[in-house]
């Protein structure tokens, strides 16, 4: 039987909630894809007792949060760029930035 590590326990639950919240927007689907995977990932580590091990896993969870946020941002940015900018305009701005960086 695991010894309940109270402060870490609440941290783990908070992490799970944050991931659930982020997962609702997951492109491949939440109910059929994200939630089962998330749950499996947490269940796999349910028997961890060593504090350092648990902290390492929480840190990994926080890293996943950052990755998800970055992915959502990139997806949104790319969709909007495709919808709202003319390709030549993009090229022109890239050229101007290149010229500016050379000047410096």
């Amino acid at each position, binding site marked *: 039987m695991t010894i309940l590590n109270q402060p870490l326990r609440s941290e783990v639950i908070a992490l799970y*909630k*944050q991931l659930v*919240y*982020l997962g609702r927007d997951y492109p491949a689907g939440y109910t059929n894809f994200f939630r089962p995977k998330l749950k499996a990932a947490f269940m796999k580590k349910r028997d961890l007792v060593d504090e350092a091990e648990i902290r390492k896993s929480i840190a990994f969870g926080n890293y996943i949060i950052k990755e998800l*946020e970055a992915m*959502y*941002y990139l997806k949104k940015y790319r969709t909007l760029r495709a*919808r709202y900018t003319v390709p030549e305009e993009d090229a022109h*701005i890239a050229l101007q930035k290149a010229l500016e960086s050379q000047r410096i």
Partner: protein
Amino acid sequence: MSKSLRIIVPVKRVIDYAVKVRVNPAKTDVDRNVKHSMNPFDEIAVEEAVRIKERLPSTEIIAVSCGSAKSQETLRTALAMGADKAIHVEVADDSKLQPLGVAKLLKAIAEEQKPDLIILGKQAIDDDSNQTGQMLAGLLNWPQATFASKVEITDTLAKVTREVDGGLETISSKLPAIITTDLRLNEPRYASLPNIMKAKKKPLTKSTPEQLKVDITPRLETIKVEEPAKRQGGKKVESVDDLIDKLKNEAKVL
């Protein structure tokens, strides 16, 4: 920077960018019973205000949204991203709200709150009007810097790099001023769950067009909404002769 800045950021609740928009059967509007979120250009505007606040901590950011009661969710998102307080102008049917009406409402709020800066998204991704910021600048008689891709705020000046046709233009303007954001201005942060929870404690005041003494009767009427024509599928041809025949007789390009 001697005095503290006050920034108003208007935000709009729109159909989420990832949702495929469909026309309703009566062809009067699009189906609005789908996922909504904050207009992405407004997210960029909120982010820019928050970044100014991070440099000048005495800055106060006021998020404003005009629309149905559900607009409060959008305001909560803005508060979670870092706005200090929110004003919700309740309009029962926000599908009838038009840029001029919104600009008049924002003018009334600006006269009340006396901000130094108003940062708006250049356009909403639902009606794509790209008018509210410009109309608001006209109504308030304030300088405007539209399509901003870089913003620098100094004591009484705003230096804004704008994305114009075929290049970039840098202008400097006195405050108070109006800035509308372009896509490349910044990378908006994600409104995380803990921050959304904290945002519930931030003040949100309600107002109505009547209280602000603004007439928001629509000036434009939507006659018909239609989907773009479906693309016709391609077909295979048997031989070169067949291809030439089709180009001549069907496509009529030869």
